[in-house]
Every structure is written in C-alpha cells, then in structure tokens.
C-alpha cells in the first residue's frame, strides 16, 4: 500500500519524538562511522595477515562453523520436541534453553567450568575415563560458542514449527508417508527458511562470542583465541590490527543483516 499523497495533519509525527529518534540512530551510527574512520584501509590487508590475526581468523571460522553445525544437529530435535511434544515441565525446559540468551556470557563460562572443567561434575569423568579435557582447547571454545548460539537456532526453528500448518503433515501421512518421511519431505522443506535463518543467527552469535569463551577456554593464540579475543588483546599493543579485525566482524554482521532482510527488514 502506498502512502497517501497528502497525509492529513494529524498523521504528521510529533517533532520531539522524531528528534529523540534521530539521536538514537546517531548513537548507533557514530561508533560504526568512528570505526570506519579509524581503520587504516591501506594497510588493512597487511594487518589481517599478521600471524595472530591469521590464527584468530582461521580459528574463529573453525569454531563458529562447528558451533553452528552442533546447534543444528542438537537444536533441530530439541526445537521439534519443544514444539510438538507435550510433556510436564515443557515451559521449564524452554526457559532453560533460552537462558543463555539473557545470561551474562561470563557467567555462562563460569557455569561451563563448573560442569566441564577437569574438576567439573561431568568434566571430571570425561578426563578420568577418556582423558578428554575441554578447558583451554579448541573443543572448549566450540563448546562455549555452542552454549550461547544454540538458543538462537532453537527459538527460530521452534517458532516456525509452531506456525506451520500441521495439516500438511496429516495430508502426507494419509498419502502413506511415515513420520520420518513426513519430516524429511514436508516439515523440513516447509520450515527450511527458518532453519537457514536460525543457523545464520547462531553462526553470527558464535562468531562474536567473547565472555564464555575466554572464561571457559582461555585465551591461547591458535587454540582458543578467536577474533573477538584477539581484538581485545591487541587493542593496546597493535590497535591497527585490532581495528582491522573489528572491521571484518562488522562486515560479517552487515552481511548477516542483509541476508536476513526478508525476515527482519521487510516487516512493516
């Protein structure tokens, strides 16, 4: 619907509200402009190929993609159960799954230590029985990123499963499709866009993860020092490198927003 050519006076927005809104936009925009302005574009390529930066870039890619894969593998069944299975305590389980969304990541890291460190309730056995240690390893960084990324995937996919017209699944069943075939050939394609969106969100969150990672996995170059950790550490010693890496993260964020525009930006 196109706006009317001559809007009546009363629909004209109040000046004060618009003024405050402009301040808010500036508040978001100025730091980004500042970052762009401070970046030394000429040496950007050089800054990003320093050994620390390359290690951080590579590690961030590995960890965030792995965390996304884990989020999909575990999140899809979890979202399905939350959306489709009635069981006592379901609201509690959902709250538990969504907790990392609001939990300070450092607290998440401390909690992960309590569970998976060599003296944690699970980690103790992992180490004694299998010799597996998660803290201060890349696996630990992946675990920390999954912890914060998974809720984004679950919340997106669960909503899609709830919104989907389940009668399509009925129709598939009457045509002879068993539960797995119904899921694979009807449910999954119909919620496909949400699965992709959830995975992209989870990946973006994993890529930016700082607090839980540094707390649980530490800050070891080439092993657990992902981009955000590297930015933080090099900011004092090599600010150019830190800003270059920040620009990379900002660019990725912008790409994510643009790729999800149909989902977010198209809303009226």
């Amino acid at each position, binding site marked *: 619907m196109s706006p009317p050519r001559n809007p009546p006076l009363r629909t004209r927005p109040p000046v004060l509200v618009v003024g405050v809104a402009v301040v808010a936009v500036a508040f978001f925009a100025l730091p980004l402009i500042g970052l762009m302005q401070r970046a030394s574009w000429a040496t950007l390529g050089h800054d990003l190929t320093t050994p620390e930066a390359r290690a951080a870039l590579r590690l961030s890619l590995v960890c965030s993609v792995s965390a996304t894969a884990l989020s999909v593998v575990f999140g899809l069944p979890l979202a399905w159960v939350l959306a489709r299975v009635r069981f006592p305590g379901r609201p509690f389980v959902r709250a538990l799954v969504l907790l990392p969304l609001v939990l300070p990541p450092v607290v998440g890291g401390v909690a992960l230590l309590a569970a998976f460190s060599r003296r944690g309730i699970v980690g103790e056995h992992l180490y004694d029985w299998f010799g597996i240690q998660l803290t201060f390893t890349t696996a630990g960084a992946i675990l920390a990123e999954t912890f914060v990324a998974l809720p984004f995937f679950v919340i997106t996919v669960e909503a899609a499963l709830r919104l989907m*017209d389940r*009668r*399509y699944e*009925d*129709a*598939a*069943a*009457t*045509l*002879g*499709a*068993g539960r797995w*075939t119904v899921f694979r*050939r*009807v449910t999954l*394609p*119909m919620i*496909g866009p949400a699965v992709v969106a959830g995975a992209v969100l989870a990946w973006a969150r994993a890529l930016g993860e700082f607090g839980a990672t540094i707390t649980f996995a530490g800050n070891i170059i080439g092993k657990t020092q992902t981009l955000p950790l590297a930015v933080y550490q090099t900011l004092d010693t090599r600010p150019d490198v830190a800003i270059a890496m920040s620009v990379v993260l900002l660019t990725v964020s912008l790409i994510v927003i643009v790729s999800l525009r149909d989902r977010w930006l198209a809303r009226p």
Partner: protein
Amino acid sequence: MTVSADLHLELGSLKLDVELSIEPGEVVALLGPNGAGKTTLLRSLAGLQGTDTGRVVIDGDVVDDPEAGIFIPPERRPVAVVFQDYLLFPHLTVLENVAFGLRARGVGREPARATARLWLDRVGVGELAASKPAAISGGQAQRTALARALATDPRLLLLDEPLSALDAGTRISVRRDLRRHLDHFTGATVLVTHDALDALALADRVIILEAGTVTQAGTIAEVTTRPRTDYVADLIGVNLLRGEATDTSVDLVDHRAHVIIADVRRGPVLLLIHPHSVSLHRQPPEGSARNQWLGEITGFDLLGDRVRVRLDGDVPLVAEVTPAAVVAMGLAEGEAVWATVKATDITVYPA
C-alpha cells in the same frame, strides 16, 4: 463389504456416535450442519484421529479397535483424503505432489512420476505438471488434489467439502468431472458436504449427521421425500411439522394448532408440506382447503423465478409464490396473511 465403521469418541464438546458401512464403488454423502462432527468422522476413518471405542474395518482389515489395542496409523491405511483446502505441498510441483503418495509407498522416482503424469492427464491438468501449487487456480488445485489421492489406489476415498472453496462457475464443471472420476473409482467414497446439490450430483446414498449422531440415512430419494429432521427439511426447502395423529386430525407437537390430513392415521407422525402447496390470501379464505392459519410475513427469499415467503404464526410455514403474486397482493414484511393448505397436499409418514 468394503468399509464398515462403528465409531465412538469424545472431542471437546463433540460426542460422536456413528455406525456406517459402505460398499465398493458406492459414494456416500455425509451431510450435516457445522460442528456436527463430519470432519472428525473423516479424520478418524483416515486414522488422523483416534477413537474411544468401536471398530473400523477396511477391506476385511481391522484398522481401529481400541479395546483390542489395534490402531493402524494413517500411512498404513488404504485411505486417501482430498482436504477442504486441498493442502497441496507448496514446495513441490504439481507433478511431485501427485507422485508423493507413490514415492512414500516405495515406488521409484521415474515410475512414480509416470503414474502421476497419467493421473494429471486424466483429471485434465497435465499441462500444469511443472507448476507450483501457488501458481494454479482453485479448480486446478482441486483436480490436482483428487489426482494425488487417487494415484495411491485407495480402497476408501475421503472428500472433505471438495467443492466448497470454488466459485460458482468453476464448481459446476469440477463437480461434473468429479462425478465422472467417482464413477470409475472402484473403492468406497465418503463425501463430506453441506450442499444438498453436491450430494444429489455425486452420491448414491446420504447420511445426515447432527450433533455427532446419524439422524437419517438412506438413498437421496428416501431422504428428500421423507425428511426426518428440521435440518434436512431446510436443506431441501420443505416444511416439516411434527404431531400426534388421531384419525384425520393431527395435533402439532411444537405449536398450538392442528392439521387436517386426508387419510386416517394414529400415533406420532411427520407432515411434509411443499412450499408450492401453501396458498396465501389477504382475506379469510373461502374454498375447499381444510387447513387455514393466520400468519405474519417475516421475510422473502428469491429462488429461481419463484419467491419464498416466510411466515410466523400458529404454524410457521414457507410458501412459494410467483413474484407477480407478491406484487398483486401487496405482500410485505410484517403484514398478516392467511395461509391455506389442502389436506391432500400433505404427505404424512410415521415419526
């Protein structure tokens, strides 16, 4: 006997108690007002809704018997459904939709597509094979849904208001083609509708379902000549009165009036009065009509080239007159008129 069902279930405020049996090749129309349980009955035949007690047998196989612990899920019943809004899978092409049932039943991709193409040609939408459901019309979607259901070669075909989503013009041609396909179908068919015309055009037999129970069943002719409930009477557009007969006089049950009939009867009876047998008069009538009542006009309905006049009074009736008569007599809402009915024009049958 292909299909027999004895179903009992409670779902929310609905209590469904139905017994029915359908022969191979037979089309049974399930008619009833909204909320009567028609769709629930269909869903339980398909296995999408469990029953509390009872037994459903299709082609000699028990598919549902809760007391014996038997419940065959929908995907293993020889049942196909055409849903009210068709529910074509939006992410698949028309061809893939029709091939879906065969693929799900383990047929290879190419043979399944070949069969699907055959069915699409048969229902007359072969040229749409590569289209997505969003790009085809309602009539085409209905034909595709029918092809998708028939392609699995079911023993029981369930049609849930298959024509209700179509506009009047499309409806006529789709109904005619549906009739043709049902004629060729060798399994049993249950057609849910609330349109008497659909039932008349497509079904061999009708079952009237009201508030979860069967209130009348029989051939179309039986049901239309001997309606037993107000719903059926409304559906076919006739007046139905209930009363207690003593010789040629019937005391009405729901109204303080009596009706004179032509033949001697005793006990509870139903009186069927066709609207065209009801004459209207501005003055107290003289003549041979034995029944005359004063009533007030509550409304008019145009039906073809006739006008149906609704009356309220000692005996609520619908009269059918010509538009010319409405003008000549100056009939208007709220006016008092005399209605007369000849005793010989009343069909009387036991209640």
